């Protein structure tokens, strides 16, 4: 199967869906880049190059640059979705949600309910997230717990190129508002990605590997780190299951509970901050519904309750790494009541 980067997989998904459906439009800051200059057109193709080439294919009516006005253009996506388009709107860093949350939380997410089921708001809000790029406190947050908390939104956090493509296509075809979060440290990772369009369904966890001793649930970039940890553990004779929920809302509670019950030992790894985060969310699910099968405390591996620091030494310590994950899994696997 062809090897593609995470970035290329997303770009391909956008190309294919825009070709398939004239209602799909894309906009955001520098989504092409170069408007008004005397140099290259589509110079950026998005701050991370994900939308490169769309302008040439689909023209400026469907690929629109915007002023720096996230409230206006994210809200415009919601309004356009109500009226028959399927907008894919980009806010460069998810951290910028602070300037436009209302249009997501109180408008797009709630239309359908408030209007008694009459509205459909098929929009996708794409944004990068995550630490590791030395981007400091205002450009490195995860924030999906905030979206996950809000009823009416779907939230996608892909961990690899193949899922990125299938989940983005699903997001675009989905009739509900979807928050699609791309970890900026994953853009250059490579994996097998089918050429044809395909969908990866929401609410279905991927079983990354199976092992009887402990179940590790991890999201986004943490999936790779969990795999690294699992290799170390395997060498020590501890076999881990790794689950990648892929979407935090809907969450595949069934699969998580199934493996939690099978192993009786659960570790949740999350790049988001710990308080009211996804690690807590999943741990609480297990503590309520798989309690009878539990043989050990449910351990959480997350950053501390601090903003993301700038210096590499600090940022590296901030993020959960394979060693911390392995240590938690070891503790869970070896725990004796």
């Amino acid at each position: 199967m062809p090897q593609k980067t995470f970035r290329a997989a997303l770009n391909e998904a956008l190309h294919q869906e825009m070709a398939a459906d004239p209602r799909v439009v894309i906009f955001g800051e520098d989504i092409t880049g170069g408007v008004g200059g005397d140099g290259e057109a589509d110079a950026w193709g998005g701050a991370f190059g994900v939308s490169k080439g769309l302008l040439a294919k689909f023209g400026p009516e469907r690929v629109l640059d915007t002023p720096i006005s996230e409230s206006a253009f994210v809200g415009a996506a919601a309004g356009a979705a109500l009226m028959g388009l399927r907008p894919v709107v980009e806010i460069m860093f998810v951290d910028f949600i602070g300037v436009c949350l209302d249009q997501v939380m109180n408008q797009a997410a709630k239309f359908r309910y408030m209007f008694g089921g009459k509205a459909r708001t098929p929009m996708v809000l794409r944004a990068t997230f995550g630490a590791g790029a030395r981007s400091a406190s205002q450009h490195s947050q995860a924030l999906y717990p905030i979206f996950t908390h809000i009823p009416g939104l779907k939230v996608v956090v892909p961990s690899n190129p193949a899922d990125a493509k299938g989940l983005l296509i699903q997001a675009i075809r989905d009739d509900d508002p979807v928050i699609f979060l791309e970890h900026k440290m994953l853009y250059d990772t490579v994996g097998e990605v089918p050429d044809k369009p395909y969908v990866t369904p929401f609410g279905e966890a991927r079983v990354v590997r199976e092992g009887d001793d402990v179940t590790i649930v991890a999201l986004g970039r943490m999936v790779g780190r969990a795999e690294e940890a699992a290799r170390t553990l395997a060498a020590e004779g501890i076999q881990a299951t790794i689950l990648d929920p892929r979407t935090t809302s809907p969450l595949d509670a069934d699969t998580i509970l199934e493996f939690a019950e099978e192993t009786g030992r659960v570790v949740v790894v999350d790049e988001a901050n710990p308080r009211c985060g996804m690690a807590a969310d999943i741990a609480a699910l297990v503590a309520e519904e798989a309690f009878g099968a539990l043989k050990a405390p449910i351990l959480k591996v997350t950053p501390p309750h601090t903003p993301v620091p700038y210096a590499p030494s600090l940022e590296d310590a901030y993020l959960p790494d394979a060693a911390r994950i392995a240590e938690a899994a070891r503790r869970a696997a070896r725990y004796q009541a």
Partner: protein
Amino acid sequence: MQLSRDDLLAAYRTMRTIREFESRVHAEAQAGRVPGSTHLYAGQEAVATGVCMALREGDTIASTHRGHGHCIAMGLDVGPMMAEILGKATGTCKGKGGSMHIADLEKGMLGANGIVGGGPPLVCGAALAAKTLGTGAVSVCFSGDGAVNQGTTAESLNLSMVWTLPVIFVVEDNGWGEATSAEFAVAGDIVERARGYGMPAVRVDGLSLTEVHEAAREAVGRAREGGGPSLLHVKTERFFGHFNGDVDTYRSEAWKAEQRANRDCILRFRAMATEAGLVAAEDLDSIDREVAALLDEAVRAARAAPEPDPARVLTTDVYVSYEGRL
């Protein structure tokens, strides 16, 4: 362009329906039958009416917390609206939305909105859809003098210019944002603000149905022909307190009496239309009676309607589809 007699009668019927609807909502609220807050549109009828008369099928509007008038001007049925406000299963939104969230997308009404400044971005999107899909539709954003100070308004003025969108921003300046006067809260001049974005903008007398309509017609025409957005700054009057619980002591009784007596757009319309011999007073009176009967029935039906059944509908309508728990 002179409005025809039929247009004038239709306009009057709309204004009267709004006024009557609001006075019934007020009465229901006083009687304790409205569960939540409502913000009455009485006094501003000429604005919604004059603007929406300039629209055609397929056009859209975004509204505000003070949305009943916009709904009626867009042709929503008063029966389900009343039921919605009373929290009933037969309401426009099945009782889930209430006064502040009445919407009817099929009629181009994108929703009342509990967030001040929530609407301006939405019309940019509706207008973008019209432009992309080539429907020729325009989109109107109603908002208040208070909302002009919300960042979303400024961003949307700019975005609509940058994208040359078929949008009309109608600022209904009733002089107050809750208990705070526009004189205090709005620095400068709303028309000048729009012009700072290069946007055509005019000041309009909101007590004059015909003046509102004429200004709207011009702006809608320009938008429909690809000429981009406009702003109308419409001076109008809020007859009741901000919401049904507002004792409205920040305006003196004398001021309010003077307002009701001299600055009532419906009285002005009657005087204008009958004095100019365009319509007969009896025609208007008979509309009044028809409207009253319509509202009698709306209130009766709404009171009689059942409450929504939580076992059946509490968790429906959150998503179109969701493979997870609610």
